[in-house]
């Protein structure tokens, strides 16, 4: 069996009295698409924050490709090949959509040049292709602050993809997107991921999306992983149904 791309062991983090992570053990295999589900406050975003260096776990370790990345700064972790998108889109609000994506493209390669424009033909071309893939091409010159929530979400994900990461962590990539478009977006996203062999993890509340796109599902509850396995098994498991999906059904319609 090949070594997992990401391995988390015994992660624990508490904020005051709240145990956001209470002994998280998780292996993520290379090339797989893992969905993380669970009620709000279960610690899903906290896990992503720890894996990307934004938060430091109080105990436990995270290994990426065999290297210990626990407690490293976000910059170092990004350089190693992990990228993320955010629950609340984090865009450079005064700049245009294409500038936002182009900055990430440039960050990946060729950033430190001072007198040639950011949007030179190579960078602009690559950014544009990415925008097209996400259906954002028409909005390329719109200011990030003027977009609707769905477009902001997509730009956020596109920005993360621009880094061509080995592992992509997405925090609710389709929330805020109109239901009719969710599948179209996920189709494109997953196709792009599969084409590059990018490993992906996404936090999701919509069980249909989970069922359709995830290779594996991990269920979070109160800072720990309750269960993990293929979507078919997990979504039928009575414990999961009771603990999580009973609560989930209330959210999925939102």
């Amino acid at each position: 069996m090949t070594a997992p791309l990401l391995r988390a062991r015994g992660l624990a983090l508490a904020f005051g009295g709240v145990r956001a992570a209470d002994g998280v053990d998780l292996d993520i295999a290379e090339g797989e698409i893992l969905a993380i589900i669970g009620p709000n406050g279960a610690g899903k975003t906290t896990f992503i924050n720890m894996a990307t260096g934004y938060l430091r776990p109080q105990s436990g370790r995270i290994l990426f490709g065999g290297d210990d990345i626990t407690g490293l700064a976000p910059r170092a972790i990004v350089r190693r090949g992990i990228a993320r998108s955010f629950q609340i889109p984090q865009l450079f609000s005064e700049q245009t959509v294409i500038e936002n994506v182009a900055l990430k493209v440039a960050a990946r390669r060729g950033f430190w040049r001072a007198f040639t424009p950011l949007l030179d033909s190579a960078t602009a071309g690559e950014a544009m292709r990415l925008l097209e893939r996400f259906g954002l091409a028409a909005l390329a010159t719109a200011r990030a602050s003027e977009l609707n929530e769905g477009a902001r979400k997509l730009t956020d994900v596109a920005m993360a993809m621009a880094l061509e990461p080995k592992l992509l962590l997405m925090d609710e990539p389709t929330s805020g997107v109109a239901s009719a478009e969710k599948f179209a977006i996920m189709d494109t996203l997953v196709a792009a991921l599969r084409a590059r062999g990018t490993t992906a993890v996404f936090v999701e509340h919509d069980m249909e999306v989970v069922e359709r796109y995830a290779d594996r599902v991990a269920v979070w509850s109160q800072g720990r992983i309750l269960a993990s396995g293929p979507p078919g098994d997990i979504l039928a498991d009575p414990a999961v149904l009771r603990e999580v999906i009973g609560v989930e059904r209330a959210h999925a319609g939102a």
Partner: protein
Amino acid sequence: MVAVGLTLIFGVLRVLNVAHGSFFAIGAYTAASLGAAIGAAGLAPALALPALLVASAVVGALLGPLVERLLLARIYDKEQVLQLLVTFALFMILEDVQKLLWGVQPIFQDAPVRSLGQVAVGDIVYTAYQLYLLPGLALAVLIGLMWFLRRTLTGRLIVAVTEDREAAIALGINADRVYLVTFTFGVALAALGGALASPTTSLVPGIGVNMIVLSFAVVATAGLGQIEGAALTALLIGLGRSVAVYFAPEFEVVIPYLIMVAVLLVRPHGLFGRPQLRRV
């Protein structure tokens, strides 16, 4: 004390008031004027002491609300840069207002100091003012402030808004009123600091600048928003300066900044500060 006022304002309003130094200077000048007026009226010099307190109260009560309502209220939701610039502009205006009202010649009004006499400790002669009154009053004010912040309702409201503004508003606390009160307090503290310092030094245009840079150094060293820490740090820095005066007088002015840089190199958020984590 000035530094504490500054921290108070920043902690609650999140506006670093560059003009704070001006309030200090104005407090100082006002106190001097009052003192001179008392002297000229032939009243007992001992009355000059309470005059100091009155001066600062007046300055605080008048300028505080005025500035807050007219200026600050407009810029709360603007970018940090703009807020900084607005208080900076205010500072420039007040510096000239000082010059207009009190002129450019140095003013020296030390009646309150003289009226208390001197005290000898070892071979060093201090004025009773320096040794007892100033520290005593400062301590009293600070203890009073701490009691106020911890025990009274208004005080607790201020602390609540400092710790978590959004939560406080969600709980129905009238943020506007808290801001007004806090700012006025902060200004009064600065003016009090100025008033208390005025009898010990000659007043010239420019004491405001020195004060704002110095108090900022204190606030930065202590950590933004740390009210008690600011008081402690001010003390530490004051001690540092006294030591420097003893050993290397030319560099006495530089000491606070050296201390600030040294502290920030080791602890970027200040001695007592806590880093503010943004939620993503």
